[in-house]
């Protein structure tokens, strides 16, 4: 909201520099975010009086003018404008001047005639035709006042600082000049005064003879108050009013409409003026709209109304959407002769809902939706009529027409001085507290605070403590550390595990990524997920930003592949990545929250072909080992739609499948714009955490030497090494310390369809040396077991 410094000073004698004003206001909870002065942008532009106009000797479209700019000798100005005449008062940008948009004006010659500057239009001064009565778009601004040589900014009232204030949502009282003035006065310790508006004289007719008001929805309209004005003379507003409206960013329309806007800015109470001639039956009915009812609002838009919306209607039709915008059918026209001023209080939530549903947020709805003080309608209505009188815009009928269902109870809160002092760590006396509260419009008597009706946000001693703390100064509150007996802080085992997991993943060369958790439903096609897969049953956002971010992911794979693809497209020769992120699995009962499960995702590609399936598997093994997990088993997986059927493994620990790793199916890689081999793994974080080995206990170094044997084996190509190893381990018994594969060979020296595998076996006993005989016997057992499984010793 924009607030004029000049206007504020009508209520409190502020003298602070704008910068200081801004800083201090921020410290009392009034967030002034900036300020500007229109006049700061315009330099050396003055009022000039045109003494003579003659045609340019060499140019049909130019005129040469002699102008008095208050400097003694008249100066010559050449212009192309045609609306300048002898005796006209005009803005003159002198030699070395600056216009609103930053344009510099200097002396020059136009077709041989010297021009000592330029006449200005409204736009060149940063104004519009609404800002100055009688001004035109394409021509020079003809002034109604001023003396040659006067600074134009002063004459036009542009020399005003305008502050931008962000008002917090629970303080609608501050959405007004008076509200901010009150806070300013309290902040700077200055007097503050608003005179109660008074109407000097009334026409003999009674308003109630012309107008009836009935409120059919008192829940949505606690208070409706109206006055009627006759003999209305529609015309432009006076200069001071136009200037004040402009400084607050409101353009002038005509005197009656301007008065409603002026009062809204001043008091924070939205007002509306109806053309009485258009109010059928002279009756105002505040009711819910009928379903399907249609109305054209002031902005010319046809609005479809619903039963939830409140309208102001007459006998026949709606004339305004309550609290949001008036109807075109009853707007103030040049011919309007009788006016109904509405000053009403509406239920905030309903206005908010209506303005949202209709997609129009107006200055009025922005105030109403925060729940205004029902008592505000009285002064606002009288202020509007007082202005009508002052402007000579009409005669006010006597009496008001009002329906009032509002709550007039007065809230009181005991002033618990000691409690407040301890809560905010201050040592204020009761007088000091009272002083603060009184400056804000509260009254304090016998230790009881009476809350003014415009401060419905203040309900409890906590709220009072905040008011007092703000004006006592947050800066004055000391810092203290608490001696708390709170124990049990620190990381949980699981939180520590997650950190170690991250360290292990980085240790094998993977970098961490963060991705969005909402995805496009199309990822499932790209991942070749079958149409009937439960994976596709993702939680849908009902108001997503776009389709690409419309469902909560049930897999992290697409997020990883998208990041790999982005890196690939950015021509990075390799990317080794991991993410610990959530998937969201719908609950069978859809009213229940989904399961949020963390998944550890690994992914990489490498242009140089340095990496393959075993790089990935090695990473997994390394990570599991460093986390001290139980032994993992890798089982071939040929049926996962997103992975390569021959290069993928399921990871099993403790008879539980904890994840999958392998090469991404080439068709999936291609769908994500990747070519070449891409490797990923997806591992359930909770299962990983559950797979930790029971204890990490030191294992003594062996005391006795190991007996080692190498075995060269021959088997069919389809036999998995993992199976062979299992057989060896089983047959080798407890003294077989380790089995390690050191060579795999297929080729000329091995018969077609077979492969040769070479293992190094190591046997050891804790309590004595293994004898050769004993070792040989074990080897025989192993070979026999292998033989049974179709594996022979290579001769």
């Amino acid at each position, binding site marked *: 909201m924009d607030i004029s410094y000049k206007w504020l000073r009508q209520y409190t004698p502020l003298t602070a520099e704008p910068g200081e004003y801004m800083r201090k206001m921020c*410290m*009392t*909870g009034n*967030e002034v975010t900036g300020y500007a002065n229109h006049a700061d942008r315009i330099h050396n532009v003055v009022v000039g009086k045109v003494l003579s106009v003659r045609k340019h000797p060499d140019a049909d479209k130019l005129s040469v003018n002699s102008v008095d700019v208050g400097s003694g000798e008249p100066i010559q100005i050449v212009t192309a404008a045609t609306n300048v005449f002898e005796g006209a008062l005009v803005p003159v940008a002198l030699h070395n001047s600056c216009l609103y948009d930053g344009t510099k004006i200097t002396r020059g010659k136009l077709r041989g005639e010297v021009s000592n500057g330029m006449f200005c239009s409204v736009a060149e001064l940063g104004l519009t035709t609404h800002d100055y009565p009688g001004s035109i778009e394409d021509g020079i601004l003809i002034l109604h006042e001023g003396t040659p040589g006067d600074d134009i900014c002063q004459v036009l009232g542009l020399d005003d600082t305008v502050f931008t204030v962000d008002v*917090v*949502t629970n*303080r609608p009282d501050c959405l007004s000049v008076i509200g901010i003035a009150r806070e300013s006065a309290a902040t700077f310790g200055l007097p503050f005064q608003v005179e109660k508006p008074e109407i000097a004289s009334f026409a003999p007719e009674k308003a109630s003879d012309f107008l009836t008001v009935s409120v059919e929805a008192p829940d949505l309209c606690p208070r409706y108050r109206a006055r009627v004005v006759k003999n209305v003379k529609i015309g432009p507003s006076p200069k001071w009013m136009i200037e004040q409206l402009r400084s607050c960013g409101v353009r002038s329309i005509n005197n009656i409409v301007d008065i409603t806007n002026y009062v809204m800015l001043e008091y924070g109470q939205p007002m509306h003026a109806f053309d009485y001639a258009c109010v059928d039956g002279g009756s105002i009915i505040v009711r819910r709209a009928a379903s399907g009812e249609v109305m054209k609002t002031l902005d010319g838009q046809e609005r479809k109304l619903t039963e939830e919306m409140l309208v102001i209607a007459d006998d026949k039709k709606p004339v305004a959407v309550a609290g949001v915008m008036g109807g075109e059918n009853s707007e103030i026209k040049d011919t309007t002769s009788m006016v109904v001023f509405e000053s009403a209080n509406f239920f*905030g*939530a309903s206005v*908010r*809902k209506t303005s949202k549903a209709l997609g129009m947020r107006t200055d009025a709805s922005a105030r109403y*939706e925060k729940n205004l003080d029902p008592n505000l309608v009285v002064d606002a209505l009288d202020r509007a009529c007082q202005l009508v009188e002052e402007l000579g815009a009409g005669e006010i009928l006597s009496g008001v027409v009002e329906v009032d269902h509002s709550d007039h109870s007065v809230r009181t809160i005991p002033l618990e001085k000691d409690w407040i002092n*301890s*809560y*905010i*760590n201050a040592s204020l006396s009761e007088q000091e507290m009272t002083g603060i509260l009184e400056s804000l419009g509260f009254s304090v008597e016998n230790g009881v605070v009476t809350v003014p009706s415009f401060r419905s946000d203040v309900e*409890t001693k*906590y709220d009072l403590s*905040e008011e007092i*703390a703000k004006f006592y100064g*947050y*800066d004055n*509150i000391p*810092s*203290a550390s*608490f001696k*708390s007996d*709170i124990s049990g*802080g620190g*990381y*949980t085992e699981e939180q520590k595990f997650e*950190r170690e997991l*991250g360290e292990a993943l*980085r*240790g094998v*060369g*993977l*970098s*961490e*990524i963060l*991705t*969005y958790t909402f995805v496009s439903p199309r990822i499932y096609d790209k991942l070749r997920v079958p149409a009937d897969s439960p994976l596709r049953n993702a*939680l*849908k*956002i*009902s*108001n*997503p*930003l776009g389709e690409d971010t419309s469902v909560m992911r049930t897999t992290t794979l697409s997020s990883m592949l998208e990041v790999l693809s982005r*890196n690939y497209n*950015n021509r*990075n020769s*390799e990317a*080794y990545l991991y993410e610990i992120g959530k998937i*969201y699995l719908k609950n069978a009962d*859809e*009213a229940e*929250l*989904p399961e*949020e499960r963390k998944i550890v995702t690994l992914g990489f590609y490498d242009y140089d072909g340095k990496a393959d399936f075993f790089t990935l598997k090695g990473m997994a093994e390394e990570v599991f080992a460093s986390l001290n997990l139980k032994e993992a088993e890798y089982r071939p997986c040929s049926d996962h739609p997103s992975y390569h059927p021959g290069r993928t493994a399921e990871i099993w620990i403790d008879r539980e499948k904890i994840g999958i790793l392998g090469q991404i199916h080439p068709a999936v890689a291609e769908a994500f714009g990747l070519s070449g081999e891409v490797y990923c793994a997806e591992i359930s974080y909770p299962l990983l955490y559950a797979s930790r080995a029971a204890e990490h206990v030191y294992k003594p170094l062996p005391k006795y030497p190991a007996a080692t044997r190498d075995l060269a084996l021959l088997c069919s190509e389809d036999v998995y090494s993992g199976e062979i190893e299992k057989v060896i381990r089983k047959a080798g018994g407890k003294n077989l310390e380790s089995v390690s594969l050191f060579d795999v060979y297929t080729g000329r020296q091995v018969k077609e369809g077979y492969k040769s595998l070479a293992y190094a076996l190591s046997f050891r006993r804790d309590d004595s040396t293994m004898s050769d005989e004993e070792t040989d016997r074990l080897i025989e057992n192993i070979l026999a077991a292998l033989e049974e499984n179709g594996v022979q010793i290579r001769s």
Partner: protein
Amino acid sequence: MIKKQLEEVKEKALEALSHADILDSLEQVRVRFLGKKGEVTAILSQMGKLSPEERPVIGQKANEVRGLIEKKIAERKEELSKAAAEQKLKSEKLDITLPGKRSRIGKKHPVSVVLDEIKDAFVSMGYSIADGPEVEYDYYNFEALNIPKSHPARDTQDTFYFSPEMLLRTQTSSVQIRTMEKRKPPIKILAPGRVYRIDEIDATHSPVFHQIEGLVVDKGITMAHLKGALDSMAKKLFGENVTTRIRPDYFPFTEPSAEISVSCFMCGGEGCPFCKNEGWVEIGGAGMVNPKVLEGCGIDSSEYTGFAFGMGLERLVMRRYRITDIRMLFENDVRFLNNF
């Protein structure tokens, strides 16, 4: 006679030694003179022919000669070994300006770097880390935080909904409620996590970002404790010289409420382009827990008070590393990630 032979052998040996310039030839010299069939050995084998009187004299002489040759060989050997070692070192010289062989170590995402620091700082102050769901009930995200359905504060947090009652949380403050429902005071938690708001994606907006929420509830907690906690946090995160400022603000779930700023860690509060010449950088919001919120969670507000604070993590990360576009954080280009 033998004596003369010994003298000659000695001279020959010394002569031979002077020519031995590699270790191999030195060995040959040793074998030639001192070996089993060496010249000195040969002479000594003639000792038997000598008279008993001559024997000790010649014997002594022979030992002298052998000792001398041995000594010279040893000296020469050491010299040559030294030279050989030096030669080897010389030949092994490398261009040490060639690049190192690096093993790939992955990087932590900058958001995690800063988050872990913050968590460590609070854990060291006795906080524990709490968590809550991202897909949340309207109740926990709004209602219980004193933000009823019609509250205008909802406008500033445009929300993704799944149903009228289920949404993506817009603030980690929901974890406050879940914690207070589960646990009775004293409570001292930090709740970091993802939050979601409807925002078009641009350089400074992301529909997904992280917040860090803190909550302390106990007997006798006052605003000074809030200030103290914020001070120690700021010092831990931004350095000992940083000061904290709180200014009044409004949040429905705290009363009084405050905006938290820290003195600009770039200019120390003098004013610079980084802090827009204000000397202060806003980092979040805070306040004393609204008694309505406490009561809603079954905590007696006449007995307990508390404070809460919240900060946006991405903004801290971006300030720390001078990142100007929030999208970088979610694009995950490895060239970006390798910076951290």
